[in-house]
């Protein structure tokens, strides 16, 4: 008897394949927009463009990594954008910018929103251009040693995808899940800056879309090229960049040395920078860091002392370091300790959970002023009753990128607000001691006059040629807009605010006493009475955005509310008593439970348990659309992109189960 191959009857095994084919498309239910601006942008029908107009989702774009109390921010600024556009193509970006220009709306480019300075946050509404979906790694040229990427690509993803060609990035930011565009436009200093210099040295060309819709390709030496770095979105939207990469180092051996006193440590570092050792990177860590790490590890592995971490990549410099150390009285710590600390370089936010909350200041200091800056800021912090952590990343010219941060409790609004203000005082003090601000954004605006004049002038010139109408991120950097006809911005004016800050620093004994009273009041009256586990987790979240880049749900839904960061923000919004719309609640359920977010979370948060609690609350509030969840799962698990994610191990550094490197395809 002949049996047809197809349609021979029911499957032999009842479990064979889902009975219905997976859905071909999925789109989560959107909230009604009700905004004319959104409707007119939608009408343009730009391919691949997602227009975000729902209030719940727009709220996500009103903040970045920093945790500014909402009431404070809302008094001064209108930080919620009027509209968010999420383009996927260069043409899409051009269309959005042209639209913004025609409507006279400010366009604010945004990467992963992992800077704390507010560069990607609106101050007077506007249109946020969310670049996180333009994240393709366009081309890897392994012979030429270059990689071409879209601006929304994350550094971690680039590093991973070029690794199989035996290549590595020259420098990376310590928040490795930030985007290419974001880092180029803000800092550009980070890991390996000591041996490889500023990121601009590794960029071969950068494509930038200007408000007139044109795409400009800028190469080193061309006018405007240097201005792009640190431009904070003033010139246009960076859409792609060609970056030179190096051969991946064959070895990497970090060394850890402890010193008695900051001076001794910094002197050692200075001597090392001018020696012939030529390390790949040098970092200074203050004693407090090790106290916290010991607390995290629940064992006193490290001495709580000033430390220098030196990473060596070449055999020759290894020898040179050996020789160098012999000329000094210092001995290095055991290798595993050094490796542990070196591995921590990507997870500076881990200690945040002890607050929960972390605030600080970030400046660039010349080599001879470094010690003075550290001790000066340290003294000021102590006067304010803060326990500061210092971290210095040495740059190629001996300068240091100085990070000064301290724990705070962001659950206590008053204390937190004061602590946030203190960070401005600290920055002010550091600038007095000869430092330069690292990034301007919103919160460092009072210090913008401390920026290098020539740089500012170059940027101004570039802006007048690329963005003559002032569409790009207007109301920031050169001026600061805000509510009450710019009154808030006026208060932040360097000429007004700096003297005030300076005076407060000078009068810091008095300032700190006054603040002390307020503190006491805050502790007694306003400390949260009961903080649930969920809220605690939300407060511990560093908002670094690592989870966004690995989230398969975000890949499909393109709404950050499905990611860990978004969900924790939802939890916070609920705690504030904000109304959560039904559609908003449903987004929270769209999750693959892949735990990728837990894998990348540098705060090592117990996210899945947090989701369960949040979902329970939301289900009680708004119910649960089981059909939508099912459709979402069946759709997602059958998309090729999801397969790709899984093949990659879903997450950078996901365990391969100790089975060695047999997965050649990864």
């Amino acid at each position: 008897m002949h049996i047809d191959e197809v349609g021979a009857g029911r499957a032999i095994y009842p479990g064979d394949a889902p009975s219905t084919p997976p859905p071909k498309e999925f789109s989560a239910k959107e909230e009604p927009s009700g905004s004319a601006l959104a409707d007119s942008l939608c009408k343009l029908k730009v391919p691949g463009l997602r227009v975000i107009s729902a209030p719940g989702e727009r709220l996500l774009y009103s903040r970045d990594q920093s945790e500014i109390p909402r009431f404070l921010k809302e008094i001064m600024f209108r930080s919620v954008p009027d509209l968010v556009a999420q383009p996927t193509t260069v043409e899409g970006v051009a269309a959005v910018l042209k639209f913004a220009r025609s409507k006279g709306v400010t366009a604010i480019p945004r990467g992963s929103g992992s800077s704390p300075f507010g560069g990607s946050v609106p101050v007077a509404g506007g249109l946020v251009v969310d670049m996180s979906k333009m994240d393709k790694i366009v081309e890897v040229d392994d012979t030429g040693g270059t990689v071409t990427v879209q601006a929304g690509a994350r550094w971690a993803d680039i590093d991973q995808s070029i690794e199989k060609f035996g290549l590595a990035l020259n420098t990376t930011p310590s928040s490795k899940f930030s985007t290419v565009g974001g880092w180029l436009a803000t800092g550009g200093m980070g890991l390996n800056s000591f041996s490889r210099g500023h990121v601009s040295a590794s960029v071969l060309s950068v494509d930038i879309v200007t408000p007139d819709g044109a795409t400009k390709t800028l190469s080193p030496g061309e006018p405007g090229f240097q201005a792009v770095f640190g431009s904070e979105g003033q010139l246009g939207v960076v859409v792609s960049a060609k970056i030179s990469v190096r051969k991946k180092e064959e070895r990497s051996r970090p060394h850890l040395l402890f010193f008695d006193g900051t001076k001794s440590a910094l002197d050692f570092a200075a001597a090392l920078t001018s020696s012939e050792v030529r390390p790949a990177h040098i970092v200074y860590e203050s004693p407090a860091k090790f106290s916290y790490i010991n607390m995290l590890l629940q064992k006193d592995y490290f001495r709580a002392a000033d430390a220098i971490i030196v990473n060596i990549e070449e055999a020759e410099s290894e020898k040179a370091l050996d020789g160098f150390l012999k000329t000094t009285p210092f001995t290095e710590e055991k290798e595993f300790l050094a490796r542990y600390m070196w591995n921590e370089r990507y997870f500076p936010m881990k200690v945040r959970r002890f607050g929960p909350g972390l605030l600080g200041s970030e400046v660039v200091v010349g080599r001879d002023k470094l010690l003075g800056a550290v001790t000066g800021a340290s003294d000021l912090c102590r006067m304010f009753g803060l326990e500061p952590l210092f971290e210095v990343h040495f740059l190629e010219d001996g300068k240091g990128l100085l990070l000064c941060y301290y724990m705070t409790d962001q659950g206590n609004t008053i204390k937190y607000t004061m602590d946030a203000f203190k960070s401005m005082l600290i920055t002010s003090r550091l600038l007095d001691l000869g430092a330069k601000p690292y990034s301007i954004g919103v919160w460092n605006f009072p210090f913008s006059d401390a920026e290098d004049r020539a740089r500012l002038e170059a940027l101004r010139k570039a802006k007048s040629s690329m963005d003559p109408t002032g569409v790009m991120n207007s109301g920031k950097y050169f001026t600061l807009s805000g509510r009450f006809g710019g009154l808030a911005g006026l208060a932040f004016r360097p000429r007004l605010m700096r003297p005030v800050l300076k005076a407060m620093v000078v009068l810091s004994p008095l300032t700190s006493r006054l603040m002390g009273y307020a503190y006491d009041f805050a502790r007694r009256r306003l400390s949260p009475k009961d903080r649930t586990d969920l809220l605690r987790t939300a407060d511990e979240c560093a908002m670094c955005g690592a989870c966004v880049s690995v989230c398969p749900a975000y890949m499909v839904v393109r709404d950050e509310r499905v990611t860990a960061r978004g969900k924790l923000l939802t939890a916070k919004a609920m705690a504030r008593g904000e109304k959560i719309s039904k559609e908003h609640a449903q987004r929270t359920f769209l999750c693959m439970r892949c735990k990728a977010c837990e894998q990348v979370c540098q705060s090592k948060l117990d996210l899945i348990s947090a989701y369960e609690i949040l979902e329970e609350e939301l289900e009680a509030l708004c119910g649960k659309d089981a059909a939508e969840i099912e459709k979402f799962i069946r759709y997602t698990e059958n998309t090729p992109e999801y397969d790709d994610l899984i093949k990659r191990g879903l997450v950078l550094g996901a365990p391969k189960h100790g089975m060695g490197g047999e997965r050649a395809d990864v």
Partner: protein
Amino acid sequence: MFERYHVPLAPMPGRVSPVPKFVIVRADNCMNCGKCERACIYGVHKRSEQDLRKMADPVNQLCKNCFRCIEECPQRALAMMPGPEFRALGKGIWTSQRILTIWGEAETGKIPVFGAGYRGMFAGPGFDGMWTDMSEIVRPTRDGIHGREYISTSADLGRKPSLLEFGEDGRLGTKMPPLMELPIPMLLDVTRVRPQSEQLLRGFALATKRLNTMIMAPSSAMTESLVSDLDGRFVPVFPEDVDADSIDLPKDVSMIELHFSPSWKSNLKTIKSRNPKVIVSFRVTANRDVEKNVLDLVRGKAEVAHVLYDEEGSEDEKGEPRHAKDSLRKIHKALVAKSLRDEITIIAGGGIAAAEHVPKSIICGADAVALEQALVIALECRNCVTCSLGSCPANLSSAPAEWVEGRVTNMVGAWRDQMLELLGAMGLREVRRLRGEFGRAIFYEDVERESFAEVRGGAVDD
């Protein structure tokens, strides 16, 4: 009108949770990606019904050990191990695999793909050291052999005179002894089976009726209503020290069993004088004298010899007891040598642990086999020893009779189907022809001798 024998089969699911042969362990790093769900064609992996975003626990008993999920898991989160519960199943020849096979047969009534070379051993002690030609290919032929041809699985019980005598008037002079035909060469024997309860016994009786075979049980075990219900299919087994004079047989009994005791001849005479139509079977414990004893029985005109082996299929001997396959062959040969083979029916009981053991016993010279332990195994018994302690993982004491009936019927049905396949493969039309056909099988020791006797200078043990 002729009615073709047919065992009606219907699925009879188990009552206790199944024992998985393989256990899949899902580690914590599972990321619920659902790849295993799409990889597994047996339905081991499913998303959880309560929360579709998470994977449910693997349904281990469906696993066929194909390793596909383990291969495909991107997180290397899956691992497989032999089920610890499975490995603890059974003892001796009642291996965990055989027990699982019987459970499957009793549940579905279908033929499993299992036998020598087909995930079974190629050689081993007892019946494992024996291949029937193509016998272990117990896979079903494409449309089932009994769809195409008629093969008889009938067995005769009773004595067949070697010659007939006719009187001067041309009439048959020989007094024909009673003869019975069973549609299958399998009888049920619960005399030696341990767990006993009324429901179990009733279930076995119902199965006997459905199968149209006979059930042997202690004479006092069955209630009157059951006996009358069984309608002559009940074979009372009388104790060894019974006084034959005191035996008062119910009317519709067609066969009884007595023990092979010193007074067997007089007992036989007593019974026969009162009930000439009743077939009298003697239970003979197999030992090194079993050939002689069976010869005695034939000469004393006993009609059936029920040779009893132990649970492992061995004789009751200290030292090195012979296995049924050797013992039965010796008996058969002895009878054939004296030209007496058809004058007695030989039933072999004990150590029948798989479908293939039935035809193998028959090849070695038995006319039929008595199923004992297998009947209880079909009821999810694990052949452990806890029943003596009063606890049973299969909870046999609460098994309803209808369930027992279904399970036993399914198992016997599956075993018969396998016999049909085997007969079909051999080209035989009836199982009676298979009896004593040693040439239909290859015995391991013969092969070894033939292959290596020369090589080793004839030093292979005979």
